[in-house]
Every structure is written in structure tokens, then in C-alpha cells.
């Protein structure tokens, strides 16, 4: 039953022109970033180092988050969900979870496509395949930001659907502004400057606690509204 709703919602997200357009924009932008900046290597590391890959993920992040918030607008169109909600005897809490799951799955697909582009590029250009080392920076960038946007977007969507568009604009703006490294949404400054302070060439991937706490902060800030709203709905 919930599986069916999930599949239905996911198809609604993925099977339309907007998703296709977003994916195309993401890939085009990713390609330009790869050949324009990443190819040179970030902070004198290899273009396929965790640092460069993390920087690449950070560059794509605004597009991915904008996509995620955009998916959330699908569920603020009140008409459709009420039809479904009224017609079937579902638990609203679990129903909300299923829909958030669908949004997450769509966002995940975008992220995987973006990452796959870079991995394919590394493989094709450098014949380099050590992809496992790239998981940590990728997750460090993507997970907190995606969770944060999910919570923020869901909360705003409950208030007013139009706020989601404001959130998209806000995310795009925030990722352009210079921020202190710890709360930098895209971690651009961290990947660009931190490796040079480590004093060795091609340093292994490490994360100082301040950055880690910043990322935890984003995750928690996004997770709380989800848990809170969800619990209130299930009561």
C-alpha cells in the first residue's frame, strides 16, 4: 500500500519535464565545472582527490538543493494530495513520511547523476578508479545540506507553498555569499584553503572539528522540524 503510494509519488516527481530539465541543467553545469575548475585540481591537489571532488559536490549543491525544494512544491498543491488522502484510509504521518521519502529519492537521483558524471570523467580522462576515497567528502557536503533543505522546505511548505520559491532563491544566494568556513553551506572555502594549511602535498582527507560541528548543525537544524512535525501529525 505505502509502497504503491511511494511509487506513484516518485513517478510524479521524476516523470515530468521539470525533472528532466533540472537534470540537464545539473549535468551541463557539472561538466562546465569539471573542465573549468576541477580539472586544474583544487588547492594543488589532484583533480580526483577527495578535496577536488568535495569542491565539485559543493558547486553542484545549490542546483541539487534547488531541485529538492522544487520537488517539495509538488506536495503543496493541496488539491491533488487531498484527493488521494481522502480516498484512501492512510495514516497521515506515514503518508507524509512516504512523500518525504519520494522527495529524498528524487534528490538522491540528482546527486548520484552529478557524482557519476565526475566519476565517469575521472575514469575516462585519467583512468583513475579509486572511487571509494571520494565517499567521505561527497557525503560530508551532500547529506547535511539535503537534510537541512528537506526540513526547511517541509516546514515552509506547511506555512505557504510560495515560501518554497523564496527558499530556492535564498539557497542560491547563500551559496554565492562568502561565509565563515564552519557554516559555509557549500564548503567551498574549506576545500579550497584547508589542504594548503596541512603542510604536505596531496594530504589525506581530514576534517577539523569546527567543520564537522557545522555540518552536524545543518543536519540537526533540518532534522528537528521533520521529527517534530511528524510526531505532531502522528499523535
Amino acid at each position: 500500500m505505502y509502497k504503491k503510494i511511494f511509487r506513484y509519488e516518485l513517478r510524479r516527481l521524476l516523470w515530468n519535464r521539470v525533472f528532466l530539465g533540472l537534470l540537464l541543467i545539473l549535468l551541463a553545469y557539472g561538466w562546465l565545472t569539471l573542465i573549468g575548475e576541477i580539472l586544474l585540481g583544487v588547492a594543488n591537489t589532484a583533480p580526483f582527490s577527495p578535496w577536488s571532488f568535495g569542491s565539485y559536490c559543493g558547486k553542484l549543491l545549490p542546483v541539487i538543493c534547488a531541485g529538492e525544494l522544487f520537488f517539495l512544491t509538488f506536495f503543496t498543491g493541496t488539491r491533488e494530495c487531498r484527493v488521494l488522502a481522502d480516498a484512501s484510509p492512510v495514516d497521515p504521518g506515514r503518508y507524509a513520511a512516504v512523500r518525504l521519502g519520494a522527495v529524498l529519492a528524487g534528490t538522491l537521483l540528482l546527486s548520484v547523476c552529478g557524482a557519476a558524471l565526475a566519476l565517469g570523467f575521472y575514469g575516462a580522462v585519467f583512468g583513475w578508479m579509486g572511487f571509494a576515497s571520494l565517499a567521505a567528502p561527497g557525503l560530508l557536503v551532500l547529506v547535511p545540506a539535503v537534510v537541512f533543505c528537506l526540513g526547511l522546505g517541509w516546514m515552509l511548505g506547511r506555512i505557504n507553498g510560495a515560501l518554497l520559491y523564496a527558499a530556492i532563491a535564498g539557497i542560491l544566494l547563500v551559496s554565492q555569499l562568502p561565509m565563515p568556513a564552519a557554516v559555509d553551506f557549500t564548503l567551498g572555502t574549506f576545500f579550497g584553503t584547508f589542504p594548503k594549511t596541512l603542510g604536505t602535498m596531496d594530504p589525506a582527507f581530514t576534517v577539523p572539528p569546527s567543520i564537522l560541528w557545522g555540518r552536524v548543525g545543518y543536519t540537526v537544524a533540518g532534522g528537528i522540524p521533520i521529527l517534530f512535525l511528524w510526531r505532531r501529525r502522528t499523535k
Partner: protein
Amino acid sequence: MRRLFRLELRRLLQSPLTWLAAAVTLVLPLAGYSLFPLLSWTTMTTIYLANPISLGTLGGTLAFAALTLYELSRVRRFRMEALTDSAVSTLALTVLRVLSIIACSLLTAVLGFALYGPYTVWKLDLVFSLGDYALCWFLVLFPALAFGGIAAAVCDFIFQRADVSFLAVTVFLLACKVGNLWAENPWWQWSLIKFPAMSDDFGNTLLFRIGAYSRLIWLCLFGGLFLLAMLCLRRYGKRLCGSFLLGLRRLWPCALAAVCLLCGGGLLWRNQPFLDHTPADWMSVEEVDYTSEVLHITSTVITADASDTLLGNVSGSAVYQIENWSGETQRLYFEMNPGYTIYSVKVNGQPAEAMDHGKDYIAGRYWSCELPADRENTVELAYGGMPQIWNVNGGAFYDTVVSRRYVDLNTKSIAPKPQAEILSEDTPYSLEITLPAGMTPVSEGTAEAVSTTDRGRVWSIQDTGRSALSVYAADFVKADLEGGGIPIEFYFSEKHREQLESLNAVSSMEAAVAYCTEHYGPRTFEQGKPFKILQLTEFQFGGFASGNISATMEESFTVENLQDKEKGASGAEVLAHEIIHQWWGLGVMLTDLEDPYWTSEGLTTYSTYRLMEERYGEDYARTHYLEPWEAAVEDSRNNFYVRHPEYLDRLPERYRGDIQSTIQGVNQYSGTALMIKRAEDLVGGREAMDEILSRLYREGGTELGPAYVTLNDFLNACGLTKEAVGRV
């Protein structure tokens, strides 16, 4: 009809596809800022206005073409279902629909104008011009969207297929934009007007004049084509030819108007008044020297009017006293801007005939008249017209112009320039020129305001030993740079007055002048005349030096350049760097056929460092110059590809080149400066190096001639090798 139009417009405004077209048009400019800049010039207006507008214009053209095709295909579908025929004729509905799309494109431009306004004002700050901003949206962007719609409609009327029509419009756009055949020609640019760059401080009048003229041409052409294509709309199930003949019979006034419009457009195109007709293979044209050795100019008196800021016309009269030493009749030649005509010639009071030789060559054309055998002759000319620019690259050099914010008239555009010898260094030259109010002229001679008329301000410019000079006028402010022995006058746009004052730039530039004069030699060509450094428009592309005038590009004054740490530690120090270019770059050019990073920048940066060391002491110079250079060079040495060249070899050719030039880029400023610093140590210190540089400045190099100093010239002068200074 009015009601129907409103109805149609409202329907369009409610359609999401209209909004999609508008969104595409308004989002693309964002990518123009840094992702896809179409122009590489670095004035603020180019970066924050020309680049975004260009991308929005090109994308919007296609978006609105697509929107039009979608809407017209709906008309076709409805007509097949015979839904609309009863109420209103298909023809009227089609025309209304195209008109509403044009209205939508205007609304898009208004929306863009409002949305991008605040950011553009903020970024451009003191160089923001409301006029230029508005023209960018309403003369550049809006007509392109409308033309995109009309072009699509024309194709659709003929082919009756949306896909074929869209392809046709796209191919037409690309052919005009990227094809070798037309891309350089401003009149083929029906979507995005020809945009070489944009000026911050001196207006973009000529750019917009040429743009407006090309819009007029295409309005006629597209209007004519639209009317003609309307006749092709299928009627009563007939095919293309049948419908056309039937349409011709029914709507013959339309056909007549179409022919008139097409002819009008063609005539406008053929007789465009902006570009000269220099042959495309101008390099192979053999220049004839018409200068007569037996004719000598003894005095020149010119009265010119350059106050017409609407069309930019110039008119004037010139009186030349000429001695004929041959005792025979002689032909006297004049070189003049090809846009001008000589209305009348009088020789010794008698009307004479002026002959037009009719061959344009680099914004010049020769005229001539007959001189009698008398020794003393007075030649009076009346002339005028709109100055034309050289047509190379479709007239990218939009420099010769008379406008509200800028007047730039070279020797050939002030008056006909007689091709004869000057009698002596004391031969008087006098020009009385009327310029738009609020301008200060700068020329080789001395200028003085004499009166104010309702047309503008009359200036008297006096000089000796010449028969022609050039005049640059704008809201120039003069700063006297003392300290070099000879007076140096520095002219810059009023817009930068506060900025330069707050930077305390004048004292920094004075220090640069004093330093270079003392260490390398004076920067002058003509004794007894002040040396003038002008800030000039970007359309000169690179600066020049001639006689006692030297130009520095306006991009030296942009906020971004003043923050360029490679050139100097502060804005004032960057301007000192730009002044030092008067010695290294304009005084003598540094270039090398083999080493692309041996340019005027390295030595200029080194001289800036030495100057700052003298002004602020060794510690300051070390922390702000030597250490950053070393860090930059060290950083480029740590680059991944430098450490692992095997990965560089794996890259495809085109990326490899890009990466190598990025890594080596450090060599242009910091790397070369550091190399000169190393050479300084090897030749025995600062004084020894200064002597070498001074000799290079005064005598030039030998490898490419005295105007150039190559890397080998430099190393030979130092008695060093590339290996010794670490340049391999």
C-alpha cells in the same frame, strides 16, 4: 480589434509557456556574469551589463521564436477543427497573436529592466548610466525577442510546420552570429547587435547608434517579409503557390507595402553612413604617398563645429597658406575621413574644383585640387559630414565619434589634412572648435575656452609645426604630475575624481613619474611641450602613444583592477603600476617571440616594487611584493600537474594547453618580476640593474628593433643566461 487584442494578450499572459519563454530570457543573463561571458574585455559595464544582456538576448530570441511557433501551431489546429473561423478570420487572429507575443516580449524587457536594475546599479556604482542600461534592455534585448517572434512567424507561414520553422530560425541566427561570412558585419546582426565591448566612462553612443540603425534595417526587412509571408497563408485547402497567388489578388496593397519595406531596408543597408569602405584585403593595398615635396604649409586656420550630439555630424572650414616652390601648377592632395564631403574649394579667392579620389583606406580618403604656379596660395575649404569608422571587424573600433559624453576626432576627422610639407617647426596651427557643453578637450596643442554659444563651448587650440592634430574631449579632469622634470598632465574622467582623491592616487602617480624619469629617462618626444596621459575609451583596444599624447585604457580605473594584488598592494599602487606602463609598454614594448610570459607586465611589476621600496622602505616592499611573488611562484610549482607531469600527458590536447597556460600564468607578473629580482642580485645590485634598464629604455633592443625589448635583449644587457636566472 482592440478588444480582441486585449483578450489575446490576457490569454497569453495566463499561459505557462509565455512565462517559460520570459523566464529563459531573464535567467540566462545570470550565466552571462561569469559562466559564459561572451566578451573578454574587463570594463565594469562589459562584465555587468554587456555580457548578461548578450546572453539573454540570444537565448530570448530563440525562446520567443519557440513560443510564437507553439502559439501559431495552435491556431492551425483550431482552424482544422473549424472553431475560430466563424468568429474572426484566421488571418486577423494570426496577426493579433503575433502582435500579442511582441507585447509579451516588451513586458519581459520591462520585467528584466526592473529585476536587474538594483544589482546593476550596485555593481556599476559610479559608472552606472541609466541611459545605457535602458538602451540595453529596450534597444538590444526587446527588439531581438520581437524579431525572433516575427522571424518564426514568417517561417511558419511559409512552411506550416513548427519544427522546420524553428530549425530555420536557429540556423539563420547561428549563420549571422558565428559564420565567417557575416559574423563581423554589424548589419547582419538581427538578434544581438554587434557588441565589441562597453565603455564605463565615455558613453556607448556609437554602439547604440549603429545598433539602432541595424534595428531599423531589420524592422523594414522583417516587416516586409511578414507581409509577404502573410500572403502564403493557406487558403481553401490550396498549396503554397495557389494560396500565394490568391493572396496576391485579394491583398495586393499588402504586397505593395511589403515590396516598399523590403526596398527601404535594402537601401538603408546599402547606404549605411557609419562604416567606411576599406577593401577587405586592405593589407595588400599599396598605399600611395601623395605628400608633395614642393608644396609647403605656412599656416593653418580651422574652424570646426562638433556640437551635434544627436547624429554626430561635423562641419567646418579650413584655410591653408601654401607656398608652391616649383613655379608650375601642382595638385594638392588632402586626406579626410570618408564620411565627409568637401562642399567647396577656393584657391586665392577663386572657386576651384575638388576631386574625390573615392578609395577608402582605414577611415581615410583622398581628395585633391589644383594649385596655380603662384608662390603664395590661400586654399579655403568647406567640408562636413558624419565621421565614419574603419570597417575592419565590422567597425569594432567605435572610437571616432561626436556624442554627448565623448568626442574623439583624429587628424583626418578634424579637417582635410593637406599632404604637403610643414615649412618649419614654428608654422602656426590654429583650430577653433565648438564642442558640446561640459567637455574639456585634450590635444597635442594648448586649448583654451574662448566663448559659449547656444550650440556649446568654443575652444581655441593652438600649436606649431603641424598641419593636423587630434582632439579628445570628455568630462576630463586634469591632474599635474610633478616630479619628472618636464610637466606631465594626467586627464581622467570626472567620474573617478573622488575615487582617485580618496586613494591619494595623484601623489602615488607623481612618485611613479619621478621614479621612472630619474631611473630610466624622461618620458617625452617633443621638447617644450607638456606630456599628456589620457584615460581613453575601451574602444581603442589597448592604448597608444603618439607625439606628446599617451593613452591609458579606462579599464585601469575599474574597481576590480584597482584591487588586483598582482599589480600593486593598494589602489594607488595599481595606478602607479599603470603609470609605469608609460615607460614599459608604451615607451618601449616588451615582447618575446618564444617566451609568451615576457611582457611589459613583469618589468612594470618589478618597477612598482622598486618604487614602493623607495617610498615605504624595504620591509613594506618585502611583505607586499617579494613575499607574495615568492608565494605565487611556489604555489604554481606545487600544482598537481607540475609535480605529476604524467597526468598532464593523459589530458586531451585542448585541456593541456589551457592548464599549462594557467599554471604558467604566474610567470607573466610575479614570475618575471622575481626573475628580474634574481638578475638584479646577479648583476651586482639595484644600481647596476637600473643602469641596464635605463639603457634598454633609451636605446631599445636589437632582436626585434629599437621599439622592442625581448627576453634575450634583457639577458644580453645583463650578461646573463636563461639558466642563470632560472627561466627555462
